């Protein structure tokens, strides 16, 4: 078996793929969040940043896009395959099955993941391709687009819900991916994963801040 094949051919291998691609996406998401927060520094700042990305840094942007695309596909395909394997592993359910360790994070990975997949598609159609226009959007005016969109309650609501999904996904994913890559850190005990929780909280808050602030006219 070749090396690559062994990574794809087993449950453990696929899980490693999920962890690597998941962490790549985490990296992007953190950078993206940092970018978004520039909104609070005014229209010029964020529009310049966007212009920089689409202008001088265009090649980099495309590399990032390709890496992300591969990641998201690999992540989703292995998520799907693992889910099917896991379902098949218990064809007859228990009459009574109690869970005592699984967290809300670990239990909602799949649902949350599907939500995120929908969100990502909507989100790109919304802000990148400007295909979906809940309000009139203009190419190049990121600041204006964001403000126009998040003044609409249901757009904000969709984003806020998606960010909750992201928060839970990361609450479990940040902690578990590190273990999947082989780092052990003590026993499974929610209080020993403060780092994952804190990071998930920061990411969730960092993203949620923008639509919420816009909606409540804290940014104008």
């Amino acid at each position, binding site marked *: 078996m070749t090396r690559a094949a062994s990574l794809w051919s*087993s449950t453990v291998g696929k899980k490693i793929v999920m962890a690597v691609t998941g962490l790549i996406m985490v990296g992007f998401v953190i950078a993206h969040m940092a970018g978004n927060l520039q909104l609070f520094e005014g229209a010029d700042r964020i529009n310049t940043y966007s212009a920089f990305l689409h202008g001088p840094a265009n090649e980099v942007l495309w590399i990032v896009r390709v890496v992300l695309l591969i990641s998201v596909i690999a992540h989703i395909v292995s998520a799907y395959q693992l889910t099917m394997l896991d379902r098949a592993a218990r064809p007859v359910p228990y009459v009574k099955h109690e869970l005592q360790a699984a967290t809300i994070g670990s239990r909602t990975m799949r649902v949350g993941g599907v939500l995120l997949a929908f969100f990502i598609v909507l989100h790109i159609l919304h802000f990148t391709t400007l295909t979906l226009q809940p309000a009139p959007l203009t190419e190049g005016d990121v600041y204006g687009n964001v403000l126009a969109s998040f003044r609409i309650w249901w757009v904000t609501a969709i984003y806020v819900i998606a960010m909750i999904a992201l928060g839970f996904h990361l609450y479990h994913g940040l902690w578990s991916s590190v273990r999947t890559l082989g780092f*052990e850190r003590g026993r499974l005990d929610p209080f020993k994963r403060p780092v994952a929780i804190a990071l998930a909280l920061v990411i969730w808050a960092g993203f949620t801040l923008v639509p919420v602030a816009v909606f409540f006219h804290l940014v104008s």
Partner: protein
Amino acid sequence: MNVTLRVWRQAGPNAPGTMVEYKAAEISPEASFLEMMDVVNEELTLAGQEPIAFDHDCREGICGSCSMMIDGLAHGPNHGTATCQLHMRSFEDGATIFVEPWRVRAFPVVKDLCVDRSAFDRIIAAGGFITAATGGAQDANTTLVPKLSADLAMDSAACIGCGACAAACPNGSASLFTAAKVTHLAELPQGQPERYRRVVAMVAQHDAEGFGGCTLHGECQLACPKEISIDTIARMSRDYLMAAAMAREEKAGGGTG
């Protein structure tokens, strides 16, 4: 004390099964859960019915035979105990207790509460050993093993192969069992030569048996009568990654099982 049992009855591997209610009356709280089952079985026998089949042997938590899902929890409500170490005093008088067999595709039901766990044997056969044919071993003290390694190896080697981990796992994954053996042997100097080959072969067999993948729910660790830590799963994953990364580890694949 008196309890009501709702027990899974299934006449054979391909027969349909169903939950059947039994009353266990005047049971001593000091009796073990299996002794309570004995009493129920004695009564069933005298009433001309077939007793409930369940696996058991040592009745002291070491052989790994006993295997009951009690009230939705593998080996019942107490931690660090096998079914045979559970006593009736852990239940309330008058309680209704659900008793089911392990439910994983890789553990087909044989009868009532007995399942076929030979999948575990095949995982070991695939690579869960150190190749050291009898004879010719060097003096035991020429292999130095740091105390910490010996202790960590022992922690994982304590696995009794009961299957509770797979039974409790929402994904039906036997990762904890597999990882326990991988960790035991990888922790020792004697286990190094086959370390990477072993993990690939064992994981392949684990998957071939139809167990699910681990998403780190952590249920297995709380169900495990030997309290084996899911840290072992991280170690297994790491060794697997290393095996994939190391060109030296030629065609490890498949295992023999």
